[in-house]
């Protein structure tokens, strides 16, 4: 065991850091944000500009072949890049769905002409992508979607509604899961497409989330036409395509967890006072800091095991399936404990308490969403129990029956 870089890894790290130092400002703490004071338009422009610059240097998709706009590098190099980029003030989030889920799906399933058309501008940040799976009546049960796709000659006509689509309000393209055959059982009648979010008949309505922001949307499709050439995977092969997307999603989500939250607690506990003494001296506060470390640093170690597998060319083990579960609940518990450090004053916002609170308060408001997005806690526990431990699944009556009949 050795946490140090190999000589090759160290060399790559130096190269990446030199490039980042020349192109971005270093980040001093979790509360600092790149987009301070920017409106949405400016934020978007800045994110596109940054993505373009990364792509120019080959860092947009390190593991992709050079012909496809990548660096032809190793998964380990991607990890090193992510670690180093995390120390700089750069735009986040906007390209997460594009890079983490949509473009890999396009790369895996699209015909060569489509890849040539969509991958380079996607990597370069000229186009942004969203993932259109969930519907009002089908979230955990993605196989129950009803977005209707009807074939007319070489085109498909799309009608229906999606919901919770992150970033749809400024996306150019999306990967869209539809039902193309209502006479097949639920998971067998699905087809995936690339959809132009600016096409006639696509209407995006932002949803106000509990944090007060509007990061996700409802998307309505009325007689939207998609050329058959924009299908991803075979007709009625959408379920497999979707599973491949979710695989990459769950892996990429794990990489973005704030694993040093105990440090945030220490900063706050140094300033808070319990019974007139610095809170940091209190055994209960130390226990809270310890718990934060156990959960979140544990995740970092788990990720290190995943990275090790990746760097050795192996598939990460099944233990990786616990990362989002531990991380999202951990964030909720730690943010709650942070608020308790300040007692009654813990309800005041960071405007009054100070900038050092901003990150924790955002976590408190976003953690409930993190426990749902990309698979709820309960669904993930089912996955662990059934796929990792091999326990029997729920008795299901809906697997073999034509979807049309389920609807009744």
């Amino acid at each position, binding site marked *: 065991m050795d946490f140090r870089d190999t000589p090759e890894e160290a060399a790559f790290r130096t190269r990446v850091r030199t490039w980042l130092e020349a192109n971005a400002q270093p980040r001093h703490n979790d509360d600092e944000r790149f987009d301070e004071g920017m409106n949405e338009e400016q934020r978007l422009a800045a994110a596109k500009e940054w993505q373009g610059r990364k792509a120019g240097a080959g860092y947009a998709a390190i593991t992709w072949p050079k012909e496809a706009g990548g660096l032809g590098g190793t998964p380990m190099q991607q990890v090193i890049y992510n670690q180093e980029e995390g120390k700089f003030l750069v735009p986040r989030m906007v390209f997460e769905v594009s890079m983490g889920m949509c473009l890999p799906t396009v790369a895996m399933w699209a015909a060569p002409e489509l890849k040539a058309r969509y991958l380079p501008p996607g990597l370069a940040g000229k186009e942004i992508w969203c993932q259109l799976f969930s519907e009002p009546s089908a979230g955990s049960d993605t196989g129950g979607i009803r977005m209707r796709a009807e074939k007319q000659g070489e085109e498909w006509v799309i009608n229906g509604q999606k919901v919770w689509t992150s970033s749809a309000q400024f996306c150019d393209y999306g990967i869209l899961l539809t039902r193309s055959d209502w006479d097949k059982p639920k998971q067998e009648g699905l087809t995936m497409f690339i959809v132009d979010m600016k096409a006639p008949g696509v209407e995006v309505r932002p949803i106000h989330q509990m944090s*007060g922001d509007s990061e996700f949307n409802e998307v309505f499709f009325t007689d939207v036409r998609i050329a058959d050439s924009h299908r991803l995977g075979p007709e009625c092969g959408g379920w497999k395509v979707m599973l491949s997307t979710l695989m990459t999603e769950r892996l990429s989500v794990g990489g973005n967890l704030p694993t040093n939250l105990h440090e945030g607690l220490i900063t706050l506990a140094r300033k808070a006072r319990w019974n007139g003494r610095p809170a940091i001296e209190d055994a209960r506060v130390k226990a809270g800091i310890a718990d934060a470390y156990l959960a979140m640093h544990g995740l970092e170690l788990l990720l290190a095991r995943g990275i090790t597998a990746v760097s050795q060319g192996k598939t990460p083990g099944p233990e990786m399936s616990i990362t989002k579960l531990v991380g999202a609940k951990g964030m909720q518990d730690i943010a709650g404990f942070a608020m308790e450090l300040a007692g009654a*004053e*813990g*309800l005041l916002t960071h*405007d009054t308490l100070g900038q050092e609170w901003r990150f924790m308060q955002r976590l408190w408001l976003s953690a*409930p969403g993190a426990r*749902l997005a990309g698979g709820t806690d*309960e669904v993930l526990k089912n996955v662990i129990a059934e796929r990792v431990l091999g326990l029997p699944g729920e008795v299901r009556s809906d697997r073999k029956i034509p979807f049309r009949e389920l609807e009744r």
Partner: protein
Amino acid sequence: MNFDFSDDQRLLQEEVRKMLAATSTSAEVRKTLAGEAPYSAAVWRQLLDMGAAAAAIPEAYGGAGLGYLELCLVAEEAGRHLAPVPLASSIYLAAEALLQGGSEAQKQHWLPRIAKGEIIATAALGSAETYLTPAPLSFDGRTLNGSVSALPDGSVAGLAILRHDDELLLVDLAAAGVSRRALPSLDPTRPYAEISFAATPAQRLGAGNCAALAQRVLDAAAVLLAFEQVGGAARTLDMSRDYALERKAFGRQIGGFQALKHKMADIYTRNEMARVHAYYGAWALSSQAPELPVAAAAARVAATTAYNYAAEEAIEIHGGIGYTWEMDCHLHLRRARYLGQLIGSVHAWRARLGDELVKGAA
């Protein structure tokens, strides 16, 4: 053995519940969420006119002269309906401090105004945890200088009762030298303000060392807040259960998944444990029993953890829709935090419970 409320008390609860169901609606609560009003004047007026808010204030001081048991049930309903009103600040804390420690003249002067809603009162009786460092209070026997950082309902209060070392001070907020700053809160339905004093006239409340008095008031408030929390937690569980019966996934009601059944059974268990501790607190409070410190701290710890858990898991049970602004789940998440931290965090109260139990066993 009779560990329950009387029929008359339940009748009052029922009336308050009906009134709040009609007035303290989601739309009404959301006016305060949006900052359109610091509290719901309509709901507050009804609670006052029914004699519900001032249930525990004696008739001699303009109250309804009922008692603490009645007030506890009013609190439960207020919690259930997220009532955006200054019950905690004006009634559980300020009126209680006056009742327990005020001189006859102070009681005669202030309690009827509070009971009739002519003024809203607030109090800061000392919290185990602090973060901000406002200009310290100084009192020369006549005038007060300095600031208090987070007074509940401070922007609309006409009277403040403040802890300053081992004294409690009574400050008419209409007097000279008072300035206020509303502070944004993570529960915007229950706002805070910072209040500063510059040579503001103030008087002592009670005589001698007031630490014991302040603690007695906090114990009473802990019991009353526990009832609000129990009401809020029960309501969130109702919402979750109703949704789980209605929502379908994988061809069945989501409430049929054991993961959600056990989750809701856990919430129910915590809620009912909190309820019995709150009831015991109500008994101790209303009968002035020596068990009050233990019972109040137990009620506070159990109710705080129960409401936080019920509110967090309500969002989870509702799925994506639970995470939206339009659903009331987040109103409960915010309120659970407000009630659970208003008079100090769960950690301070758990420690107090332990201390009291050890002391009692010695």
